């Protein structure tokens, strides 16, 4: 049995039942592959034991890059490359450079963070996602358990744990790629 091809799916109707089920299934020793939901369920990432996203750090660093690029550009152009007297102001009129620096900070932070999000979550127009169940984007939460990862435990046993944790359906799903 190859990894990442054969799954047992627990289908859940309610987010609170799902949340308890995640805790219950994990404590019984089953490793959960992933949980799929039609909408963000708050606290689910903690129940699954995921580490906090580091995207805010990416946003901060890209923002910093935006500020430095904007300030460098403005000081270079206005003070060094082609200095001109405009309204009797200093060539390096720092207060005048704040609006453009702010806008560039926001622009780079937003685009940089979204770019990192797209790459890290493999979001691209030509991506072919694995659809475990078509109802995931409608009204069902699906907990996927990879059989190969949990080979120490029998398939029947896993199904039993899922059903007893509150799943309304327990299905098999295989991908042949």
């Amino acid at each position, binding site marked *: 049995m190859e990894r990442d091809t054969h799954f047992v799916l627990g289908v859940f109707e309610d987010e609170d039942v799902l949340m308890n089920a995640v805790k219950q299934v994990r404590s019984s020793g089953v490793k959960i592959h*992933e949980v799929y939901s039609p*909408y963000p369920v*708050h606290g689910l990432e903690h129940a*699954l034991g995921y580490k906090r996203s580091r*995207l805010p750090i990416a946003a901060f660093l890209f923002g910093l890059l935006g500020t430095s690029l904007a300030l460098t550009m403005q000081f270079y152009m206005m003070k060094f490359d082609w200095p001109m007297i405009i309204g009797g102001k200093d060539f390096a009129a720092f207060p005048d450079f704040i609006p453009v620096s702010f*806008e560039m900070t926001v622009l780079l932070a937003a685009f940089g963070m979204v770019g990192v999000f797209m790459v890290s*979550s493999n979001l691209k127009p030509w991506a072919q996602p694995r659809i475990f169940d078509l109802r*995931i984007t409608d009204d069902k939460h699906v907990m996927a358990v990879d059989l190969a990862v949990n080979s120490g435990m029998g398939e029947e046993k896993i199904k039993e744990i899922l059903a007893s944790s509150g799943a309304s359906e327990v299905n098999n799903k295989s991908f042949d790629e």
Partner: protein
Amino acid sequence: MQVTSSVRQPLVTGGKTYHDVTHDVSRQVEGKPSLAWFLAFLTAAGVLALGAIALVATLWEGIGMWGLNKTIGWAWDITNFVWWVGIGHAGTLISAVLLLFRQKWRTSINRAAEAMTIFAVICAAMFPVIHMGRPWIGAYWALPLPNTFGSLWVNFNSPLLWDVFAISTYFSVSLVFWYIGLIPDFATIRDRATGLRKTIYGALSFGWDGAAKTWMRYESVSLILAGLATPLVLSVHTIVSFDFATSVIPGWHTTIFPPYFVAGAIFSGFAMVLTLMIITRKVFKLEDYITMGHIELMNIVIIITGSIVGIAYITEFFIAWYSGVEAEQYAFINRATGPYWWAYWSMMTCNVISPQLFWIKKIRTSIVATFILSLVVNIGMWFERFVIIVTSLHRDFLPSSWAMFYPTWADIGVYLFTFGLFFTLFFLFAKFFPVINMAEVKSVLKSSSEKAAN
């Protein structure tokens, strides 16, 4: 677990289940367009085509086609620019500021409001671009590009240049924020579809699979984009107001402009959201999602921002008198009693008096009254910008240069063009994109629907 007080109004009425939400919103995208939609779309496209004549004439002949003269160098074009940008602000306020304040009622209106933002900013940006006269070489005047003058760069001391950066950043960040929110909903449509529609919405959904890890990152991205968009939206209208406030024209040279412009922007934007939402909920039968509660809350925002705008008008007048500067005092007396008195009093009536009617509960919970007042507010806000721009310019420092502004057919036509563009884009959006953010509505359904209360 979420605990919601039982005294709160439900956000979604009609006992909707998760599947009902999917069905009610996807139905528009999947079904054949209704006759009402076709008529509305063709009307908008017709206005667009008609306005295009004026636009082409302006580009062909130059901006001499407009009613500008050497005293009044800015009139309808900049009025329309500021008006459209202002309208855009409500979308960002709803999607970003209300997200930061955890206002759950935003969920059913944020998608359409943000679409409105994007289309309004497109319309706004057209005016300064056309006003450049030769927009095809305008990139050299607006962007710091190396050029054959050696390089003679753009002027970073100019608020007009700050505007280039502010508007383009605002547009692109709003577009990204809007699109990120659309991805899960495109996936919903993809999973209900077959054939070509599945391929198209599959590509639009970027391979979304609804994994908990992706949702975690999505939430993190949304929160930070909201955090970035909030100061951004305030900065955009602040910088727009700098176009006037940093000059030395009496009537423009005031420090009150940034907050006053931002309040006015939110005021007119919410009015436009109401105009669009009242039509959309009716045509697409979404009364259970965009409820009277939503309309009432938006009307309350209109009372608040309308009152801020009213106070700003009075403060301006007071400060003009108190400053003791004769030119400043004259500018304001001339606004109220000079040849443009009718524009000033239209502004005062529409913006200061009419929103106060919303203090009466019967009026703010009446669809007809809300619809009419939302149009009145936007007429008033157009006059506000016209009054600020034209009445401040038309009395030059030299009385021999005093002039009046009369719009030509090209002025009116280009304005019509942007109306056509705005509504054409909005109707296309309403037909082919999910008009309500399904995923976000589902996330508040359990705690805030009518069903949950029982």
